[in-house]
């Protein structure tokens, strides 16, 4: 429920928040997350822990603030961040460097485990004084893929010093985000509104497919793939629009949903409950998109706070056959959209969702945790 949001002011603008992934068969919710900051002279990667749920009473009492476990200085803005495994985090920097940090659980410290300097740079690695920002990173242990403002794609392997593969000038514009489509294919989005699929098995430096937005080539900032249905992809644009694509067919998005009033920074399908989607934006809002049709399951927090738009129900569509995300007319199938932030001020830069737990960070230098999102 929404009252369970716990806010903490942390004296740094938060650019990324990520839950530590849970081991495969874990039943308990996540209890540890990492944050990265930006726009500071001294940026930090921090690890936080949240209290265990065992102490929650029936009415869901106060959970306790996130506690800082450890942090470490980071050179440059944290542009993107992902857990490689339980102990290691890969961080993309505005200096063009990609760093792997290790979290030592025994003494609660962080150390830089591996670093690829100038993974992203303009023109000539040796002559260019500054790097180009590395804007996106995605991991599939031990593989790490990064993209940047230099239009370059790098494929690294943890513990291997040199890049496994580099595609120079993969894109003439800035690559904003990358995600895995399959283990050997990646998806990138760029600042001229294109979604590209790259097959890493092939040696040629061309995308295997290019998709474009119809109309204006609005830059795309984020991308995520449906956890179960690999052909369903969601992207967020600079105009706050959420686009859903079926990459099996056509080169244009299947549906365009108007949501935010400014850049959409992140889009996430819920990993175990993909009828739910979350987006956050520069306009200070965080939207929860719910296409689940089972009325009994409807989360109670949808009745509270923020704007709530309910479309009329037209059920009996078998969810397992046709993904609700791909239906052409969102007004036909019921989709509930709720803003989870009642008093929005500054940008929500990042969010992460795992199980019943939501964490997000803002430019108002605060972290918010809700461990009972679906209660």
């Amino acid at each position, binding site marked *: 429920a929404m009252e369970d949001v716990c806010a903490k*002011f*942390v*004296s*740094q*603008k938060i650019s990324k928040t990520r839950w530590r992934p849970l081991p495969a068969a874990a039943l308990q919710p996540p209890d540890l997350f990492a944050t990265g900051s*930006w*726009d*500071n*002279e001294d940026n930090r990667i921090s690890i936080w822990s949240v209290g265990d749920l065992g102490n929650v009473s029936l009415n869901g009492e106060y959970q306790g603030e996130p506690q800082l476990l450890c942090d470490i200085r980071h050179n440059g*803005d944290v*542009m993107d961040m992902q857990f490689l495994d339980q102990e290691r985090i890969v961080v993309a920097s*505005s200096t063009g460097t990609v760093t792997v940090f290790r979290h030592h659980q025994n003494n609660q410290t962080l150390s830089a485990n591996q670093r690829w300097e100038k993974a992203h740079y*303009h*023109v000539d690695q040796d002559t260019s004084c500054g790097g*180009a*920002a590395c*804007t996106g990173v995605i991991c599939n242990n031990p593989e790490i893929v990064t993209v940047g*403002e*230099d*239009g370059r794609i790098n494929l690294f392997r943890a513990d291997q010093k040199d890049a496994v593969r580099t595609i120079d000038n993969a*894109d*003439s*514009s*800035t690559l904003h985000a990358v995600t895995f489509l399959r283990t050997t294919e990646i998806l990138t989005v*760029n*600042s*001229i*509104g*294109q979604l*590209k699929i790259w097959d890493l098995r092939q040696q040629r430096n061309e*995308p295997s497919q*290019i998709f*474009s*937005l*119809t*109309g*204006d*080539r609005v*830059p795309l900032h984020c991308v995520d793939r449906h956890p179960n249905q690999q052909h369903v992809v969601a992207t967020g644009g*600079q105009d706050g629009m959420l686009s859903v694509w079926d990459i099996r067919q056509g080169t244009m998005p299947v549906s365009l949903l108007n949501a935010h009033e*400014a*850049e959409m920074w992140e889009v996430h399908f819920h990993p175990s409950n993909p009828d739910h989607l979350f987006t956050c934006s*520069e306009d200070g809002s965080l939207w929860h998109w719910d296409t689940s049709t089972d009325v009994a399951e409807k989360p109670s927090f949808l009745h509270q706070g923020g704007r709530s738009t309910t479309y009329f129900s037209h059920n009996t569509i078998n969810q397992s056959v046709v993904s609700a995300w791909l239906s052409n007319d969102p007004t036909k199938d019921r989709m509930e959209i709720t803003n989870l932030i009642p*008093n929005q*001020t*500054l*940008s929500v830069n990042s969010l992460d969702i795992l199980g019943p737990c939501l964490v997000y960070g803002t*430019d*108002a*230098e*605060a972290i918010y945790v809700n461990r009972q999102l679906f209660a």
Partner: protein
Amino acid sequence: PSSSRVFVVRKDQDIYIQTLRKLFNESHGIFIGLQRSEEELAGKSRKAQLVQVSKNYRSVIRACMEDMHQAAISTRDPALHSQYSTQVSILSAMELIWNLCEILFVEAAAAGPLLLRLLDWVRLHVCDVDNMVREVLSSENPSKHELFWNAANRWFLQVDVFVLQGRMDEARHLLAKEASANPTSVNMYKTLDDLMKKMPVPSLGNTQTLTEMELKWQHWHEECQRYLQDGTFASNSHMESICKILLGDEDAILEKKELLTTWYQFLVTRLLYSHPTVKPMELRFYAQACMDLFLGGESSPEPLDTILMAAFEFEMHQVIKECSIALSNWWFVAHLTDLLDHCKLLQSHNLYFGSNMREFLLLEYASGLFSHHSLWQLGVDYFDHCPEYGRVYLELHIERIPLNTEQKALKVLRICEQRQMHEQVRSICKIMAMKALRNNRLGSALSWSIRAKDAAFATLISDRFLKDYCERGCFSDLDLIDNLGPSMLLSDRLTFLGKYREFHRLYGEKRFSEAAKLLLMLMTAHIAPCSFWMTLLTDALPLLEQKEVIFSAEQTYELMRCLEDLTAGKSDKQKFQDDDVETMKVEMLRLALARNLARVIVKEGTLEGS
């Protein structure tokens, strides 16, 4: 603590202390909430709302104080410890002043509740006995202090402290212990306890009117007087002094000066025991008198004292002015003044450059935020709520933010776009586009031009592409050019680029007649720049040389006209300078065109199927 010392700290240090960032961010949220709050609410509900806002500000100050205190006690560096402790005192003083302003101005407590509020106020800022004793013992000349002699009897002092703060129940509880230690004075104790229990206090609700209370109080006061004069407490000096305090005896209260620690505590105690139904407007007389008595010519008023006195005198502008001088950071006065302005308490006090005090302070505060590498984002919202000069200040400040990454530039851009600051949008996009161009990121450069709708820059980028094509014979960044979409229309040159690429595609797909039509259209519709015509005509050559006739007669005439326009345009000097290749090209074209014309005339003249 010596609460009457307010230190002036350097401005830079204020901004850069971590803990204060929380203060700035949390109060920013409260500020925005206040600006957005319902103005339609009137009367009591509006006042309650404003009081809540004030309380929120204060709780943020206290949270900050707590953090700073934690930082102070956990650091080993003596310099840092001193710095943090100083900040704690400053924050404490700020909370003290704000709290008083809340009681007197925002809530505007009336006689009756006023005293209760003032009692709460001093209770939040008192020191406990142990700390007091510790301070005395560690001072230069401990034996000079009264406390020193009574240090052994802690609870003696504690009873006095409770009485001075009007905490009757707690005082009575401790007195019971004193009584049990002296069985002979049980009766005395019972009387005193009874008196303390019966003391009338103003109520918060409407259970009694002021007059009723005054009557009761008068009655009670006389009873205390009787007991004192009867000599009931004569044999126990401690209880006698308590009774005198209850009667509001100035000397008796002043005797406990060291337990009072401040003149405003003295003031509240005096009011409690001599005039509990004091009216707000009467405060100033009592305050002045108490301060004079308490300081007694030994010390002169400190800045904090002056500020509090101004508050008691209801001189709001004076309070703000004194705070501005005493505190190095504009945070306090900006937010307090804004709140008072929302309470409609400040007349528009026009300063010489025309804006009012609230706006002036907010502008100063926000400008300070902009000097910080990270807090500038907060400053934007403050400028938004300065109707006169906010926009112009924002325009000037926002241009000076360094744009290290594209993401930061996007955020700044969004701020400008939301406020229709077109100049700044154009300027930022141009800077980013130039950077991209220098780094050979043509797609990024184009993306920025599209955002700014900057046709001139789009033309520049297209020229770059075309130049690359002429030099290399092929297009770079096909993924961009092939997917321009509607943005192609941004500039003629960009349209040409897109169409030209389309021509090449059509040719590659062997759709010759469509390609030919397009090529011709590029010239006749003047989409192609003149400088490119030669290239286009040269591109026409293979089409002219095809086995099949592609260009119609009409089209051939058009092409010929274009060629003539092109060559006629050249001056004789240019023709002389043209090298052999140029002249040969023209010759070849003329020949090809003539041949094509011949063929097509024949073809068109021939009847089909005959």
